[in-house]
């Protein structure tokens, strides 16, 4: 007489499956988005440094000095190409490239 109602110790199988599926979907979206943001962070980090390098190299050109060809900083390698005649500076960083030239 005490156990008149059967004790429910959990949800049904369908309920659990639905919850797992939803959770998986949400985590997938979150992970994707996070990856994208991570990529953006890296890009910003590298580009900021590349811009600084480009500015420095341009200043070197103004002073009629030779450009450096490769720069290693913060575990990143930057490739620099300068053209003295056209006063153009290209800086290549792992995720992209900065092109500066006179119009």
């Amino acid at each position, binding site marked *: 007489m005490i156990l008149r109602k059967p004790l429910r110790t959990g949800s049904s199988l369908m309920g659990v499956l639905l919850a797992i599926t939803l959770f998986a979907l949400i985590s997938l979206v979150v992970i994707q988005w996070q990856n994208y943001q991570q990529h953006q962070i890296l890009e910003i980090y590298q*580009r*900021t440094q590349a811009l600084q390098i480009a500015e420095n190299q341009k200043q070197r050109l103004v002073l009629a000095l030779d450009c450096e060809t490769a720069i290693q900083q913060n575990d990143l390698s930057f490739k620099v190409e300068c053209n003295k005649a056209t*006063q153009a500076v290209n800086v290549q960083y792992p995720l992209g490239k900065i092109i500066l030239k006179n119009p």
Partner: protein
Amino acid sequence: MKIKMKSGIATISLLVVISSALLLMLVFNDSLLHLARENVLQRYQYLKTDFALPPISQEHCQKIPKPAMKNAARLQEFAVNPNDEGLQYFGYCQYFQLFKTGLNCQSTSIYDVDPQQLAHFQEKLARHANVFWFENDKLWQLERDITGIIIAQGMLEIQGNAKINGIILSAKKGNISLSSEISLFCEEQKLQKIIEDFQGWELVEKSWHDIKKAVANR
């Protein structure tokens, strides 16, 4: 059945809470990233303008017309801003002139050299093929016909068998003697072309600035 429904709603609402918290965090991160990206872009834009403007300011001076009057302003301020992007450069153009205005084929008189102008053109004078500058006494043996302006600051004796197309000027205590075999004539057009090489507007050194200076009322 009733209890089962309730437990399902609890699970879903828990998921909704978790996911909205995550989304909120990501959106917040995204706005921060957006700001940082904007910063980088702004910097790139600035660098690009900074690249383009100095050469433009160099050319700017060459476009100013020749001063009409003798005492026209020798200094002009200018501003360059090609795309109206907020960044502006200013500078001064100065008019340089080595030869006095009005120099022509008839001039032979003593030519006073402005030391300041001379210092400015010194480098160009050394390279120029049509101006012959003699600072010291010299005996000049001419072997070919020449075109140009000859300036003597000391005693200059020209010998040889050649034609000179141009004028001879003496500066300071200059004294010139020509041997009889040398014929001297002058074409106005060619002379003026040489003179024009030594006058014009140029960007004044160190006059470049990117903040507009307040000009006091005169």
